């Protein structure tokens, strides 16, 4: 029994020391105060200077960065410790992507060009290309033994988001339309018929019967008989299934509103553009954005294990990674014969995507080639270089062209 009590006393001594240490720490921390000289002054300060570097765009600062910026500003004697307790600090989470997804994300903010997407490009016996889709960039060449080979380039991803808008206008014109429907009932009022009947059935000598005729309950029922308002109901009901391009009052309700005519002209133009056929024309594949560099492509194409192995390497790159509508992007395609034999009839094709518009007279080539363009399904152009001279092993070249981002 005594042994058990001794063990309890020994165990309670460290616990008591810990409690004393905690109380001492709390007391020391509670005694901490700010120096009066470090307290801020109550004048109106200038806005926060976030960065002292060049005029380039800066990212949104976090609360801690704002505090550091204020602290580093010499004309602001501010103690950053005062920021404790600031609700809602500016949390900046740039370049976030879902777990497991790498590369440019999200897909709808990037413009991709290059590679061989979705359906592989093939060459038929008559020389016609099959499977050439938007965004595809491939090179076709013949080997000395008569084979036709196809080599796609890498993909180029540009951050070029484009925004649109959908407008909905709720007006009081609807109430006015109802008033118009009520007005349509007025011509149906058989007041004229009433007078005619009174004139025909009035028996002049019998005056009291004339009072009966003025009640005319049957005539009142006629006012409830279907009026043109009912005839308009099916027309107005169609609007629930109407598409965007049918957003015309005259199409939906049969009522022509002169006041909305000028501003609906733009919607008509937009609706014409947004037809289903054109939407089909610009349908692209559902590829995930992948950032491929030339080194990766070269690593895949430089392997030559056996002699007489033709190989062509293509690297495509863009002048910038981000672009806004209207910006001009310079594209460069580098091609090299990395095989061990001569290749001929080299043809380089770049099928531009919808939002890239080729700038005329900007195509260049370091080797003698015939350049031609052809309209593609995306309302853009397919650029094509047919190189005249064959490529010897180790030889290469490059082509350049400019595109305007739509």
């Amino acid at each position, binding site marked *: 029994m005594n042994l058990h009590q001794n063990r309890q006393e020994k165990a309670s001594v460290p616990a008591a020391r810990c409690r004393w240490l905690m109380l001492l720490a709390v007391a020391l921390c509670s005694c901490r105060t700010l120096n009066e000289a470090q*307290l*801020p*002054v*109550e004048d*109106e*300060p200038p*806005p*926060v200077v*976030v960065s*002292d570097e060049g*005029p*380039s*765009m*800066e*990212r*949104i600062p976090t609360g801690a960065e704002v505090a550091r910026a*204020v602290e580093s500003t010499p004309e*602001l004697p*501010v103690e950053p410790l005062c*920021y404790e307790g*600031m*609700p809602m*600090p*500016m949390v900046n*989470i*740039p370049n976030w*992507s879902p777990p497991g997804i790498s590369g440019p994300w*999200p897909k*709808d*903010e990037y413009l991709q060009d290059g590679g061989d997407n979705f359906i592989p490009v093939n060459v038929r016996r008559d020389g016609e290309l099959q499977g050439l889709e938007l965004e595809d960039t491939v090179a076709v060449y013949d080997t000395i033994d008569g084979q036709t080979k196809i080599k796609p380039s890498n993909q180029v991803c540009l*951050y070029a*988001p*484009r*925004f*649109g*808008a*959908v*407008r*909905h*206008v*709720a*007006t*009081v014109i*609807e109430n006015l339309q109802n008033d118009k429907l009520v007005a349509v009932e007025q011509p149906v009022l058989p007041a004229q018929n009433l007078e005619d009947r009174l004139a025909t059935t009035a028996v002049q000598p019998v005056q009291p019967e004339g009072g009966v005729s003025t009640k005319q309950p049957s005539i009142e029922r006629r006012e409830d008989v279907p009026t043109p308002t009912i005839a308009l109901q099916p027309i107005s009901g169609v*609007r*629930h299934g109407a598409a*965007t391009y*049918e*957003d015309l009052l005259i199409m939906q309700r049969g009522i022509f509103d002169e006041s909305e005519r000028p501003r609906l002209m*733009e*919607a008509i133009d*937009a609706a014409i553009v*947004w037809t289903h056929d054109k939407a089909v024309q*610009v*349908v692209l594949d559902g590829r995930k954005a992948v950032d491929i560099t030339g080194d990766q492509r070269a690593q895949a194409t430089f392997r030559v294990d056996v002699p007489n192995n033709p190989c062509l390497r293509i690297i495509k790159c863009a002048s910038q990674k981000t672009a*806004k*509508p*209207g910006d001009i992007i310079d594209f460069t395609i580098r091609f090299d014969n990395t095989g061990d034999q001569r290749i001929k009839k080299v043809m380089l094709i770049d099928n531009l995507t*919808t939002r890239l518009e080729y700038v005329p007279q900007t195509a260049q080539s370091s080797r003698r080639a015939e350049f031609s363009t052809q309209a593609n399904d995306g309302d853009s152009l397919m650029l094509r270089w047919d190189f005249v001279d064959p490529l010897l092993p180790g030889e290469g070249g490059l082509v350049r062209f400019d595109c305007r981002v*739509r």
Partner: protein
Amino acid sequence: MSMVQELRSRRNPARVAGTVIVGVLLWAGGDARVAADPPPVHYNHAGVMPPGAIGGQQLLRGGPLPGYFQPVEIKGPPGSQIATAEGGDFSEPQPGALVAGMLIGAVYRLRVTNIPEQIGFEVFPTVEVIDRTYPPRGQEFRFPIPVELTQEELEMALAGQFVTRVIYLEDPDNAVPVAREGNEQAYFEVADGDNPLDVADTLGRPVAILRLGARVPGPEGPDATFLYGCPPMVKWHASQPRVMSVINDDSQASAQSKPIRDLTPTNRHSMRRSRRR
């Protein structure tokens, strides 16, 4: 083998059946949870919902949305001036475009004055950011969400009409093959019975909602309800690209309290010091 090990090695039929049942229940529960996940688009939302409702529900979907100041560029017609709600009142109107970082789910009240051909009239639109973009690091303010206040729509609002403009991020796979340069933003117009949010979902990813109407503050000036509590924002000074101001960073400060203009962090220190005294 001991007795305990021998008993443990035996397969108890009831235990096996229980394991199977638990597994089936877990599978069914997991499947039901997946089925109950909200859809990626706004099927259940209507464009005419009150300001803040759609963005608030967006925050419930998760992701890096809370606390992020999405850059938004608000442009009015040439000559007009735009003021933001700060500290219970409107700031000094500034001409040209206004670039500011706005919280997702919050509603920001604006005041547009000096409207061409409508001098003397004011329009008080609201902007609600319902989704964000993911630009490359350091280029957040180069790619803001464009919110355009056109002369036509401002005049509509002055005439008593209510305009809802849903700004969406265009899907590149369904891009309209037209060039969009300059300040003009293409838009589609939907009919009265259609939901603009649904239409925007089919065209891309809705990111912001602009609402213009004939609502004006009361005779005693704008109150907290009218200003939606003056949510915090980060202003971007286009003339001085290196300078940003933190506006309304105190979410606890309501619009009914003492008006505080240009509440920069240093102003906060001054207030705290005055309270200590």
